[in-house]
């Protein structure tokens, strides 16, 4: 009986998580377009629903009913596989992400995470690394020059930025003496990691921007020179998969920034429910992502590589050494 309840709880949590992650891109696209509009003194979507609130729904219906086109020369199997490969890893990662300690529902303590792995951080980076397969396969299978160029760029970009990203969080792991995300947040109860690890955060966030393929590092889908990059040839629901995965990764990088550097659900000054604190911080980072997108131009490809290898990597290594000396 115990087992069945525990199992049921996990299934319920996973289902809730998937539903949440699948639905969150809808308001996020609306928000992105609104923010884009207002930063350019426009209004953004206004016609569907109150202030265009139903616009994402309309877009979703449009995407679902569009022709699902596969180019004649494409590798059909890989072409169909790629969106799923791109969509799955960001969802899997969220299994290891805690959203808080516990909440009590009807007198029962329910933990706000699916699993508390002791190597959660490692798991996150390992699974996020798989994301690149969806991009490679998508670009390769479409058999189009834009898609191939886009996916080549993305591979190089993702692989080179994963390295500084991985090094940047080592400082956090050293401070918390644990790789469990839960322990990392608990270790920040008094002082957030951003105080001790400003350089680490900087490297992590910049690498995160590249990882999520957002401006200024969105070379994978540089509209100006590559059509739409690796998903040039995709349409309809398969395109929506790529879109959803992109938004979930953006969310993931925001969540990781909050957990690793901004104290997770620990609040300051104002006593709010921990979950609300967490959501507010994540929302702030999502906003920062969009803010960046509509402020900065795109880096050139060689600049991107130079930043990754010549600036971020040495910075993150220096950060590890200094952290080691100061906090040992």
């Amino acid at each position, binding site marked *: 009986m115990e087992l069945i309840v525990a199992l049921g709880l996990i299934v319920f949590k996973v289902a809730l998580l998937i539903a949440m992650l699948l639905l969150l891109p809808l308001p996020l696209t609306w928000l992105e377009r609104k923010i884009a509009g207002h930063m350019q003194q426009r*209004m953004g979507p206004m016609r569907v629903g109150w202030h265009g609130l139903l616009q994402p729904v309309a877009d979703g219906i449009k995407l679902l009913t569009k022709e699902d086109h596969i180019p004649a020369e494409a590798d059909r199997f890989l072409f169909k596989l790629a969106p799923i490969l791109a969509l799955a890893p960001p969802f899997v990662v969220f299994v290891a992400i805690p959203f808080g300690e516990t909440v009590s529902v009807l007198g029962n303590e329910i933990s706000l995470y699916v699993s508390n792995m002791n190597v959660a951080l490692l798991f996150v980076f390992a699974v996020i690394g798989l994301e690149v397969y969806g991009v490679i396969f998508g670009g390769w299978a479409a058999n189009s020059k834009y898609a191939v160029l886009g996916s080549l760029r993305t591979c190089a970009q993702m692989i080179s930025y994963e390295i500084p990203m991985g090094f940047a969080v080592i400082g956090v792991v050293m401070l918390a003496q644990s790789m469990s995300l839960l322990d990392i947040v608990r270790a920040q109860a008094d002082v957030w990691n951003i105080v001790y690890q400003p350089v680490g955060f900087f490297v992590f966030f910049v690498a995160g921007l590249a990882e999520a393929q957002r401006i200024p590092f969105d070379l994978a889908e540089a509209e100006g020179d590559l059509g739409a990059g690796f998903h040039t040839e995709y349409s309809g629901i398969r395109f929506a998969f790529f879109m959803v995965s992109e938004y979930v990764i953006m969310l993931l990088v925001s969540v990781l920034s909050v957990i690793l550097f901004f104290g997770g659900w620990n609040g300051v000054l104002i006593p709010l429910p921990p979950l609300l604190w967490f959501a507010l911080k994540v929302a702030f980072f999502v906003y920062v992502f969009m*803010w*960046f997108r509509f*402020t900065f131009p795109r880096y050139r490809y060689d600049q991107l590589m130079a930043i990754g290898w010549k600036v971020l990597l040495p910075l993150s290594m220096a950060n590890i050494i200094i952290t080691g000396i100061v906090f040992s």
Partner: protein
Amino acid sequence: MSRAWDRTGTWIGWAFFSDLSNALALTLGYMFSRTVTMQYPDKEKWLPYSRYRGHHFLKRDEEGEIKCVACELCARICPCDCIEVVPYEDERGNRRPAKFEIDTARCLFCGLCEDACPADAIALGQQYEFSSFSSRDLVIGRDDLLTKPGKAATGGGVVAARLDTKKDVLVEASEPQGYNWWRNIRRT
């Protein structure tokens, strides 16, 4: 010395991302400034100035008689050759247009016809909403031209409006002026 100082200052600024943060501050400022979008045709509509050259209209004199004397000067001067005038003599012996057609699909709204007219009979008014699915509908005859709206009295403002897909875009507001659109533009 001061030059070197300046350059050092620039480098220090770059090291602390002063250029990037300036850009972020600018976009944040714009984010919370007023939008300049005119919500045409859902909610608002632009009232043109009185000098605006929109759809042509033909004028009548005090007796309600059409002013045009069918001299065909407008047809001659028109660079697009889009006016066609056929004169006739009415019962009082005046020369009047039996047929007066403007092909607004070809017209470039230069206003030369208005300048050329010796009888002050034709002018370009304030109407600008006359799109059509067929170019044949854009050939406007004499009787239609007589009913088209004239020059705007005030203009230069945005007034509330409502889209009526059956007819036209209708201006609903009673206010003659509306707000000045230029006032919303943020200048830095």
